[in-house]
């Protein structure tokens, strides 16, 4: 992956600047790990002893890996809005919902009134709209991106807190629309709380991916996540990305330097939403259905926590943050809890302490490592601008 270097003056000689080589190493390493995981789960897993399989089912089930990638894709989108452009978005779940419902609409028998098939692996006789997975990815991304612009529009003249409130409202409204969208003037938009299921199987090179082809799905989800990484890094290095960073650091100064605030902010929302749309559609194919109940406020918060914990603005940090938190939520806490309870014969309900743990981690991070696990070099420099050399010792 060729990465162009962000043009900036080298003010600090002490801090090592992120070079293209570093990004390339990350990309290569992650790709190797992903291919190894794919090969393991596709070809080796069934042949390993039962105890090994059981261990993986407890600590790292393949479905958790796939789910984590959904979070990664969405977190990368949010990173563009929050991490790059510095616009606090508390309603990102709305874009996830749009992407999910796009898959629900165009990859299932939901619209049973019509019978449209294009590139799908499902039988032609089944009514509904059945489009190819790849086409649906594009449609989902475009729908979400379009709504990203719509949400962006009223926020143009808003700053900080007010902006966050508008996004919060948006994030509350959209899931409500889907929850109550069973009868909009006689039209069933979302099937209400019943949700849409099942979703068509993914077809790739003429192969239909059934519910147990998790390794292949992992590879596809990884590919989509990699595309988002590529897009993030390329845009960041370019004119638009530099404009976002300028707005993030000082909106007034940026506009005085000729950065068109309106257009730049709108694009941040649109690109972020684009990624959210892809994440949503991937999510729908992962769980094989889409249900309105899932899209609550806590999703937006968890995504935000992933970006903040991982390191705002640094795609690698965000990926690490998303993988870590998704794993804790889906597998880590219940598995640790079960192990603990079995060892000490207790009955503690560990997963119910999820938010306590997240809250605690966030507080600790803010105290000792407020730039995130893998801070963006540039943000780190800014946040320590005023630290003098003697006090700059704690936790960095």
């Amino acid at each position, binding site marked *: 992956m060729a990465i162009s270097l962000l043009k900036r003056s080298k003010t600090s000689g002490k801090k090592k600047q992120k070079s293209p080589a570093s990004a390339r*190493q990350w990309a290569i390493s992650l790709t190797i790990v992903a291919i190894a995981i794919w090969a393991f789960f596709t070809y080796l897993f069934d042949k390993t002893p039962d*105890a090994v399989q*059981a261990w993986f089912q407890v600590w790292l089930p393949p479905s958790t890996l796939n*789910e984590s990638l959904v979070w990664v894709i969405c977190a990368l989108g949010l990173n563009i809005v929050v991490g790059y452009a510095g616009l606090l978005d508390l309603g990102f779940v709305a874009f996830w919902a749009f992407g999910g419902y796009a898959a629900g609409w165009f990859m299932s028998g939901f619209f049973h009134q019509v019978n449209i098939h294009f590139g799908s692996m499902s039988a032609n006789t089944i009514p509904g709209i059945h489009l190819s997975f790849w086409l649906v990815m594009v449609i989902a991304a475009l729908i979400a991106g379009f709504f990203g612009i719509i949400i962006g529009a009223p926020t143009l003249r808003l700053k900080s807190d007010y902006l966050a409130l508008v996004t919060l409202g948006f994030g509350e409204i959209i899931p409500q629309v889907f929850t109550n969208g069973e009868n909009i003037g006689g039209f069933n938009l979302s099937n209400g709380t019943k*949700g849409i299921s099942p979703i068509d199987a993914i077809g790739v090179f003429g192969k239909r991916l059934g519910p147990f082809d998790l390794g292949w799905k992992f590879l596809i989800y990884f590919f989509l996540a990699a595309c988002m990484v590529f897009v993030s890094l390329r845009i960041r290095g370019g004119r638009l990305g530099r404009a976002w960073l300028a707005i993030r650091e000082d909106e007034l100064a940026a506009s005085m330097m000729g950065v068109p605030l309106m257009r730049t902010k709108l694009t941040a929302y649109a690109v972020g939403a684009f990624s959210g749309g892809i994440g949503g559609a991937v999510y729908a194919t992962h769980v094989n*259905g889409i249900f309105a109940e*899932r899209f609550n406020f806590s999703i937006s918060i968890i995504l935000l926590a992933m970006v903040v914990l991982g390191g705002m603005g640094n795609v690698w940090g965000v990926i690490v943050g998303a993988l870590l938190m998704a794993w804790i939520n889906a597998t880590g806490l219940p598995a640790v809890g079960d192990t603990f309870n079995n060892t000490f014969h207790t009955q503690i*309900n560990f997963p119910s302490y999820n938010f306590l743990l997240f809250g605690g981690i966030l507080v600790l991070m803010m105290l000792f490592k407020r730039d995130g696990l893998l801070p963006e070099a540039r943000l780190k420099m800014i946040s320590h601008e005023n630290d003098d050399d003697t006090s700059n010792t704690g936790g960095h």
Partner: protein
Amino acid sequence: MTKLNRFVSVVAAAGLAATALVAGTITSADAATKTLVISSDLPLQGSAFDSNDSTNKAIELYLKSINYTAGKYKVSFKKYDDATAAAGSWDAAKCAANAQAHVANKAEVAVMGTYNSGCAKIIVPVLNQDPKGPMLMVSDANTNPGLTKAWNPGEPDVYYPNGVRNYARVCTTDDNQGSAAAQFAKSIGISKVYVLNDTQTYGQGVAQAFTTEAKKIGLTVLSSGATGEGWDAKQSDYTALFTKIKALNPDMVYVGGIFDNNGGQLVKDKVAVLGDNTKVKFMGPDGFTGYPDLNKMPEAQGMYLSFAGLSTDLLLANDPKGAGATFVKSYKKAYGKDPVGSYPLYGVAAVQIILAAIAKSDGTRKGVNNAVFSGSGISIPAKQSVLGKELKISTLSGDTLAKDITIEVIKNNDETTLKAWTVK
């Protein structure tokens, strides 16, 4: 190489070492006798925790009482949680992950669950496509009709891609509950009803069934639409809604929905505008049962409720020496309190179906499923059934053949059983 690449190679090496270690220890485990695993898949976080935790405890107790045997097989029990703390209730992604885990756990032959119909819609198709299956799932609490019978377009076939059924349930469906409520209303002399729903799947389902049956048996339905009027759970006040209803002068208001959707305010405002529940009767489905908060409200006194099955009270009253009563007593003895709500007994009933299927089978997933859906199917005689009456599963749909509904009334700050109602 760089630090990062070194890190990757260290992780890879550690992984290999761990694999080798675990591989070394398994030979001893293989020597043990083969035990079939049955599991439960229930939400164990959030508001549904108490009831489902009680279900798991009841199942454990029951398995212990029969010495963990089913025919010639030994069984063991494994609990799955389909909720996450982040969602605070069942989580679609967790359901999808559990579905994979059920199939991946080689010793597992059948699943008891789920609690939520939405979760069942995700898990059933995966179990259905299990290459060694299909794998049987028996639910204690899914009341959504579409899982087993034609309801929405494409249902229920979309959940069975293999063309073979693998899902059964021991509770009745929403449509039966709504019908029973309408028939009961007629029997107490109601002629004009107004129907409300909470705009959710479940609430609309029962409201629709109530409306359809009420019209069929000659009641006047004052509300318009197939599911009645929706109430918005986020509103702080329903005075306007009930003032509008008062002008139509109904004998009864039927609320299809769950108490959690601001049911408390709804009940208060109903009484404030329409008077207490002896004047204009008030009735709700099992979404309003099992809430001590509701039972203690002065406005709720006299409210009728229905439950999709026989309530634990009724089971005990019907047959104080039967299997059900004995079981409830032993539960109280073991855990110091009664099971929460009426679903725990249904959970045990579902396990009874699974155990009977295992006993009749060759011990494979496919065999266990076939035992339920082919030949004479599975029935539990009244003597053994914890539900106090014969439990028979249809080999075609997987539904229980019993259409029992319990009518309850809130009296003296408690839910009291009025009578059993068999849907006509």
